């Protein structure tokens, strides 16, 4: 028996580790599009971007631990096509890799604004290379406009502020993360950014970029206003990296559609950001873009490769650190939920809130109370 893991980031490496931990001793190949050894992405918008961490510290595992996993790493060669029946992946360089089981963990690709290709001073942040390029451009305290009012945009705005840049955040929501957190908590987030010196120009969609001689000069809003910028960071979310599967016959619909056991086809599995699977607890197709999902889903996939028939029914979890504030979220909060403060107080900027809908707690959000928030997780019920 053999396993091929397509994707050498958190979900791919976690699958490899889980297979070995569960006693699998046969050959495993890990195919990665990037040339770097597996690294972690959450620090890219924080510790790595601000320069506190070097590249080595972003590595998911030290080299000697990787070596012990006894896998064949093929890096710097993106997957180009999948033959589902023969279970063969061909790569851009012309390799053909076959295996009895294939795990697809190719992650996401950052969305871009039309017209940003080739324009100096415009960035996305998804890879270590992206972070290096942005880091270089954030020296000398430029005027930065972050296009995007989600988790990544808010974290980048905070880090750029910390580096001494003049920072403006633009996006369609009235406050950062409003569609997830609702008006009360996202309002506190807006207050936090304002207090730290970020200028919020939210509530208006971004329509494009302005430029002169190949370099960005500003961000144009839908109302015609232009926000001047030396550097623009586009953080408008990401799309599943599935283009290479277009002719594979797998069902692609906002990710690779999988059954409850994370199977896309016989012998083919998906894990991490790219996988959209049937969550039996919520009775819905779900795709999660968060760090803990990469590890947990990988463990489930590994178990199923080894003959178990485990349904994947996690309680989603993510965290975000912005300035000195730590936010932890268990479950899936929505803006239309009722918010009940269960511990601490909003005024003290230290609290745990329950998000309640139809008489049930659907999410727990903590603000500067990580431990206490975890203890409230038990209030979440599925089904």
């Amino acid at each position, binding site marked *: 028996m053999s396993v091929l893991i397509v994707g050498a980031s958190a979900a791919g490496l976690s699958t490899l580790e889980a297979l070995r*931990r569960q006693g699998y001793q046969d050959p495993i190949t890990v195919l990665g599009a990037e040339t770097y050894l597996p690294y972690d992405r*959450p620090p890219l918008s924080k510790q790595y971007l601000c320069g506190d961490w070097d590249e080595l*510290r972003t590595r998911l595992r030290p080299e000697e631990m990787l070596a012990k996993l006894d896998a064949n790493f093929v890096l710097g060669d993106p997957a180009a096509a999948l033959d589902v029946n023969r279970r063969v992946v061909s790569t851009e360089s012309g390799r053909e890799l076959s295996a009895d089981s294939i795990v697809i963990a190719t992650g996401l690709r950052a969305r871009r604004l039309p017209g940003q290709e080739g324009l100096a001073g415009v960035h996305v942040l998804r890879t270590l290379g992206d972070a290096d390029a942005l880091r270089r451009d954030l020296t000398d305290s430029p005027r930065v406009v972050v296009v995007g009012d989600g988790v990544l945009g808010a974290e980048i705005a905070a880090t750029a502020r910390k580096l001494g840049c003049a920072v403006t955040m633009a996006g369609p929501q009235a406050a950062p993360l409003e569609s997830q957190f609702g008006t009360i908590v996202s309002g506190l987030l807006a207050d936090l950014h304002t207090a730290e010196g970020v200028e919020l120009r939210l509530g208006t969609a971004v329509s494009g970029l302005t430029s002169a001689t190949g370099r960005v000069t500003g961000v144009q809003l839908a109302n015609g206003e232009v926000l001047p910028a030396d550097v623009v960071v586009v953080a408008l979310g990401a799309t599943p990296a599935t283009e290479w599967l277009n002719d594979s016959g797998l069902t692609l619909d906002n990710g690779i559609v999988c059954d409850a056991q994370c199977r896309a086809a016989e012998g083919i599995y998906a894990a991490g950001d790219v996988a959209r699977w049937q969550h039996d607890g919520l009775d819905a197709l779900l795709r999660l873009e968060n760090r*803990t999902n990469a590890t947990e889903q990988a463990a489930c996939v590994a178990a199923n490769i080894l003959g178990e028939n485990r349904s994947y029914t996690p309680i989603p979890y993510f*965290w975000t650190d912005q300035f000195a504030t*730590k936010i932890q979220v268990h479950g899936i909060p929505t803006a239309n939920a009722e918010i009940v403060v269960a511990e601490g107080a909003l005024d003290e900027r230290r609290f745990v809130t329950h998000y309640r809908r139809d008489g049930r707690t659907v999410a727990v959000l903590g603000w500067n109370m*990580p*431990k206490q*928030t*975890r203890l409230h997780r038990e209030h979440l019920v599925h089904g």
Partner: protein
Amino acid sequence: MKVIVDQDKCVASGQCVTAAMDVFDQRDEDGIVVLLTENPPESLAADVHQAAAVCPALAIVVED
């Protein structure tokens, strides 16, 4: 078995406590990991390895 935690890498998710509550705890004030015992008994080995595997910051190293 020796357990090493990196409090600078820790993101306060508390996944380790869920996996092995006799070995890990979190600080009340900021949720950062606290190691309760550096040399846990072998009977907890599976839980400790699970904690290291699920840590989203890879802040736990176990030396057998």
